[in-house]
């Protein structure tokens, strides 16, 4: 597996958020991480990208440990993190935002991401803060892709977006994975996430409570009752 997480624990200050997480992502795979608010999904991504330190367990990317690496070293390894709330540089143009995505790897070729998200092309010289929500999310994902990562972690792709837009953006993920960038997708919209992912993990109060093939989980009674509103 490309990303191997074993018995990982992490937290903030005296509060431990994650307990013994086991998770893996393979080559060209889309993996969803779902669960309720406060389960620790964002914390897990932040730990993997080096924003917060792990307290226990191991995380290896292509055999190299993430635990003792800084954020920029993890970017160098080929992991991109599209953060919750998109966090675009609102006062900069779309072009500048994309160039910043490729800042570390010195990639300035916008063609590939524009091809994936054509609506961005006419917006290139526009200030990112003035984009619609859907365009902003496209820009955030495109910015993440600019570092030409082997793994992209996307946090709450659907946040604040209309379902139609979410489907449109999710539909791009298989292309991204096929082109060589695996995706670890954090989502509260379980139905949407499981529709594109091959495998999924359910995270509840800091622990993985369920995992498996997306199709199997979609049919699981517990998932249907807790997340899909099917009684």
């Amino acid at each position, binding site marked *: 597996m490309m990303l191997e997480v074993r018995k990982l624990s992490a937290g903030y200050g005296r509060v431990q958020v994650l307990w013994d997480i086991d998770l893996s992502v393979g080559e060209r795979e889309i993996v969803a991480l779902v669960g309720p608010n406060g389960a620790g999904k964002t914390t897990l991504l932040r730990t993997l990208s080096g924003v917060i330190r792990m307290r226990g367990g191991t995380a290896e990317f292509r055999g190299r440990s993430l635990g003792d690496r800084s*954020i920029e070293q993890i970017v160098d390894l080929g992991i991109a993190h599209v953060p919750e709330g998109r966090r675009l540089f609102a*006062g900069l143009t779309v072009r500048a935002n994309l160039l910043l995505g490729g800042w570390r790897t010195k990639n300035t070729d916008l063609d590939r991401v524009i091809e994936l998200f054509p609506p961005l092309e006419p917006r290139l010289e526009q200030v990112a803060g003035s984009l619609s929500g859907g365009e902003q999310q496209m820009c955030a994902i495109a910015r993440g892709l600019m570092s030409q990562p082997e793994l992209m972690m996307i946090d709450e792709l659907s946040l604040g977006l209309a379902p139609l837009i979410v489907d449109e953006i999710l539909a791009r993920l298989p292309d991204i994975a096929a082109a060589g960038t695996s995706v670890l997708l954090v989502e509260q919209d379980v139905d949407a996430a499981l529709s594109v992912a091959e495998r999924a993990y359910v995270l509840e109060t800091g622990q993985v409570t369920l995992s498996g093939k997306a199709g199997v989980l979609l049919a699981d009674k517990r998932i249907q009752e807790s997340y899909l509103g099917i009684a």
Partner: protein
Amino acid sequence: MTSFLQATLYGLLQGGLLGLIAVGFSLVWGVMNIVNLAHGAFVVLGAYVGWQVNDWIGLDPFLGMFVAAAVLFGLGYALQRWLINLVVNGPVFITLLLTFGLDLMIVQAMNIAFSADYRSIPTSYAGDSLHLGGIRVPLGRLLAFGVSVVVTLALVALVNRTRTGLSIMATGMDRAAARLMGIRARHVYALTFGIAAGLAGMAGTMIGTVGTFNPAAASGYTLLSFVIAVLGGLGNMYGALIGGLVIGLVEAWAGQYLPGTWINALAFLVLVVVLIVRPSGLVGRAYYAARLEV
């Protein structure tokens, strides 16, 4: 009429130099949210560096200013990298206190090293003048103005058009997101502070060439930087230049037509009036999420 034109010209020339002093102050405030109370001390320290290399090897101050810029850049980089970065995420009050302490230390060190005497960096030409009609154009000030405008515009170009500039703007707008892009925020902060100190040092050498300086002058330059930065719009580098010109003009006119003690009062009056009419400054936009603008 001639005296008015003479004062206007003098104000514009002085204003360009003030703009170069304030541009670094504004940059640091815009990018890191640090109100650097030691900025004026950097200006005066730069003047002493220029004076010292002139004294040692007779280096012309318009070349010596590059030495001053390099020395102050190094000092600024180191101060930010290994000292101010320790508290940069804290409340603005903490950095205010820290830079106030730095100001006291630098000014006192200059008093010990150079005494409190007024000095000036001598040249054979800075005192010469061109004559345009009835107006006298002091050569040194004209040169200082030209250098200031060119350097300020070069800074704008650096921030707007280069990879380094992009990382400075991004870090200023969203430090956490910039780090996710692989930008080393601590290095960028240090670089920004170093650039600001370097420009202050450069301006200091020119001030020492066209006028006099002593360690006690430091606080005056901090105060002026503050007024100009807020007047122009925080973090806005064109704004600093325009703010500098406005303050230069106000000071020159006030010096011409009002008692000398009115000069600072009038400068602050202009600031207050501008802030009432345009709260985000002369060229600033009311877009605080995007803290740094060019």
